[in-house]
């Protein structure tokens, strides 16, 4: 899932205080699970903004709504009238949702109501942990299922560096050393010798650094080939 965190109210207020009709739009998938941007959070934030407006003596109407996912067009249909009737939409989706909404919202600005943090999992209730960097060219089969790109502070491919101590990373006693975990896990799996080989420099072009990425499934996007029967019928 994509994990996000709520932005400070003051920061949001600074973004939207010049607008009269505000729509706070929640997203009920990933960011709802991490209590940052679901329908419930949209409702609470809308109330807070109404109070803020009232305290500041600004006449602003703040409405709220939420859709299942702000990353797929079909879910937007029911709220598009509401979007068009607003001066600004504060999207509580991840950055994907904000971008996607901006594409659809015409001349209505789409602002981010949360900070998108990372791809992660729910370690336990209230704790979300980054586990993947979405870099392309996955090598988890070589590292015991533990990602050195996302989980090592230096994203090194031949770790651990000299900064690991008691299984923790040099940057903080609260951060596990990914390479310590990898070595221990590979020992357990009986595959430690896989780590004896030097991993070559990574191809980062499949990641954030190769330009914007796109996946195209041609079997879905390609136009249906004309049916042969029909073609021959037409020719007759």
């Amino acid at each position, binding site marked *: 899932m994509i994990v996000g965190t709520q932005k400070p109210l003051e920061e949001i207020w600074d973004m939207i205080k010049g607008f009269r009709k505000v729509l706070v739009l929640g997203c009920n998938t990933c960011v709802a699970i991490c209590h940052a941007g679901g329908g419930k959070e949209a409702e609470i934030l809308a109330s807070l903004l109404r109070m803020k407006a009232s305290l500041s003596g600004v006449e602003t109407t703040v409405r709220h709504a939420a859709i299942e996912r702000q990353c797929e067009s079909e879910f937007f249909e029911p709220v598009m009238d509401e979007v068009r009737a607003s001066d600004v939409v504060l999207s509580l989706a991840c950055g994907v949702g904000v971008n996607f909404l901006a594409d659809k919202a015409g001349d209505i600005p789409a602002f981010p109501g949360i900070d998108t943090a990372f791809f992660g999992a729910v370690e336990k209730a209230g704790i979300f942990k980054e586990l993947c960097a979405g870099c392309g060219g996955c090598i988890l089969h070589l590292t015991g299922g533990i990602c050195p790109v996302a989980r090592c*502070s*230096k*994203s*090194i*491919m*031949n*770790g*651990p*560096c*000299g*900064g*690991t*101590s*008691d*299984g*923790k990373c*040099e*940057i903080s006693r609260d951060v596990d*050393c990914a390479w*310590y975990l990898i*070595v*221990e896990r590979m020992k357990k799996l009986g595959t430690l010798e896989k*780590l*004896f080989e*030097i*991993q*070559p*420099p990574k191809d*980062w072009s499949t990641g954030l650094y190769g330009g914007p990425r796109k996946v195209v499934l041609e079997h879905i996007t390609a136009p249906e080939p004309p049916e042969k029967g029909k073609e021959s019928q037409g020719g007759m």
Partner: protein
Amino acid sequence: MKSGSNLEKVLEGGHFAVTAEVGPPKGTSASVVQKKGDILKSCCDALNVTDNQTAIVRMSSLSGCVILKGMGLDPVMQMVVRDRNRIAIQSDILGAVALGIRNVLCLSGDHQKFGNHPTAKNVYDIDSIQLVKTLKTMRDEKKFLCGENISGEVPLFIGAVENPFADPFEFRVIRLGKKVQAGADFIQTQAVYDVDKFAGWMKMVRDRGLDKQVHILAGVIPIKSVGMARYMRDNVSGVSVPDEIVTRLEDAKDVKEEGVKITLEIIDRLKDIDGIHGVHVMAVAWEDIVPVIAERAGLLPRPIL
């Protein structure tokens, strides 16, 4: 000879090498580097110039090396992979060789969190082992990482670091082996205070025959004050300072002298460990103690080759 550097000659000649560290200034003054070079020149075979150590911006290692080279000294250019991608790294290596630099030490680099620009983006395009291998390919095959040819020779003596006190202990030797396999000619280790633990690590090094394939210089940091000892014990990741050393300094009348004595005892024991080919003295902001230590440790005069 791979590079013809003084350090290579000393080590290949079977001498017990002495290297020390020159931290460049947070400023533009060449004389700061020259002054340190002057202090250290007669007691060391080569001088490492650090590369934005602890992620604090300082004069570049390459510039510091050129200044030392101009004084007739043999610099070791430290290069961290934190701040440069493979394009900048290879470009800097070409420039360094053109300017007469022959020794390069490859490191990961401290995370930028520790430095004076903690919000910076790090690079880590390649890691330190991949850097060693890149330099070896540049030198031996005269090729860039991409496979294209380099014009001219790339005579380099390639160094790497290892921290025997980091975790997981038994994997550190395997990782040293990877650095040797990648092409390291010499190793400078993290500072040694716990000589017993270090000796245990060196036994693992010898069991794998790595001591025959690479020159290992043990790192030494003279301790100047009780506060420094405590700080290193408690806060520096991967450095192991036994409590006994801290206690000795706490009880000492002359703390600096006690610090020197401790360093001399450590060097004495390091000299007796099979496979140790030298010491690397990192006297941060205490450069003038290095000639004293070298003298009292019986490491002078340095060979002239």
